């Protein structure tokens, strides 16, 4: 019998760290395009980044199925620390976590007109997140305009987002993660191209 390599740790103090992560996520979701840093778990197995891993620990559990593209080590880590069921189809997930090319937004659960909250959240790892330049965001949570520059998004994301925006109240919400930083795109946000 071969011994599995020891799992890297999750939250050291679950109640307080999860609370601080959640508050950062709540701020991010309430003020789309604002970038927050998450208190992150030490070292999730690659390619899972610290912020994306912290989002999983904060929000996923036995009642929230997760789809993950980060390979067996990350899967074992998520199963052990978050206790979440892992699903093979992105469409069956409450949280879809993409470290590589993400599933199309319309392949994820978007809820129904009566229950739009039964929709997936896409946790998307990107190369970098910066405030103050790039996209022009508007919508609830934004006084006039927030600017957000995102490096490393898949091609065609903006067209997918526009389609996601149009089916409101149905739709998918996105949490962008880069290193320990996060920014959120709730389904209400309108993304204008830079310029």
């Amino acid at each position, binding site marked *: 019998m071969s011994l599995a390599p020891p799992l890297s740790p999750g939250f050291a103090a679950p109640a307080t760290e999860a*609370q601080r992560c959640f508050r950062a996520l709540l701020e991010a979701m309430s003020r789309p395009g604002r970038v927050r840093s998450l208190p992150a778990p030490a070292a999730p197995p690659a390619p899972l980044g610290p912020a994306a891993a912290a989002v999983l620990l904060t929000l996923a559990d036995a009642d*929230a199925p997760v789809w993950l593209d980060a390979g067996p080590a990350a899967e074992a880590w998520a199963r052990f620390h978050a206790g979440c069921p892992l699903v093979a189809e992105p469409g069956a997930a409450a949280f879809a976590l993409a470290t590589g090319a993400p599933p199309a937004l319309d392949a994820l659960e978007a809820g129904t007109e009566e229950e739009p909250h039964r929709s997936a959240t896409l946790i998307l790892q990107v190369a970098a997140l910066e405030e103050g330049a790039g996209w022009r965001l508007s919508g609830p*949570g934004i*006084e006039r305009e927030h600017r957000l520059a995102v490096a490393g998004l898949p091609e065609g994301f903006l067209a997918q987002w526009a389609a996601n925006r149009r089916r409101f109240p149905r739709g998918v*919400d996105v949490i962008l993660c880069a290193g320990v930083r996060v920014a959120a795109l709730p389904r*209400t946000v309108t993304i204008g191209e830079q310029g």
Partner: protein
Amino acid sequence: MSAAPGYNFAYLDENTKRMIRRALLKAVAIPGHQVPFGSREMPLPYGWGTGGIQVTASVIGPDDTLKVIDQGADDTTNAVSIRRFFARVAGVATTERTAEATIIQTRHRIPETPLREGQILVYQVPMPEPLFRLEPRVAETRRMHALADYGLMQVKLYEDIARHGHIAISYNYPVMVNGRYLMAPSPIPAFDNPKMHRMPALQLFGAGREKRLYAVPPYTEVRSLDFEDHPFRPPRAEAACALCGSRESYLDEVVTDDRGGRMFLCSDTDWCRQRREAAG
């Protein structure tokens, strides 16, 4: 300060908090939409703020400063009881000063001091469904929200005007959030409704007994329903506060004798205190 021994931080177990946190994020993403959640029995009765308490318990951390008001006042019995609960189970700092609080849990009022970014206002909600007096069936109102079919409410308001010359709603006055969802602002006086519009703070609503929560993100349009020829005009007592002289704040009427004697006082006790301190 530290939390009470024998209980998890902020009373709720981590699984329950995660369930509520997931629901809160969806509520923020769909402003004004009521998200059902697995509300728990709390050590306080349903109807006494269990929804607000569960929301606060899921949001609050050791660095927060909590203010709790009922009827605008910090020293009403239920506000005292809820504040003590959190001081005990979360060990957080509490305050009566609106400006110092990071989380304000409220029943029936929005503070007069304008709220700012970085603050969260948590409303205790008895009946989250704005249509419940017109259609008691939840299955039916859910369909109406899906279709944004709010004709029933429009007709009710129109009939009020035809019959009384006024819209006969003075509190829990229905609002449209971000132009899409009809929402119950909780039983705040209509006087407070305009404060919800484009508020810099995040507004969260918890209904424990009805097991639903909802949210209004910062800077979101919140419009009180009205008609062009009958614009929304909330009532306020035509008087000044007997203690601070305010003519802008919402007033409580106090009966001073049995011969028609009345006096008016600010409902927001912190606001009144600030004004008296400023006047020296």
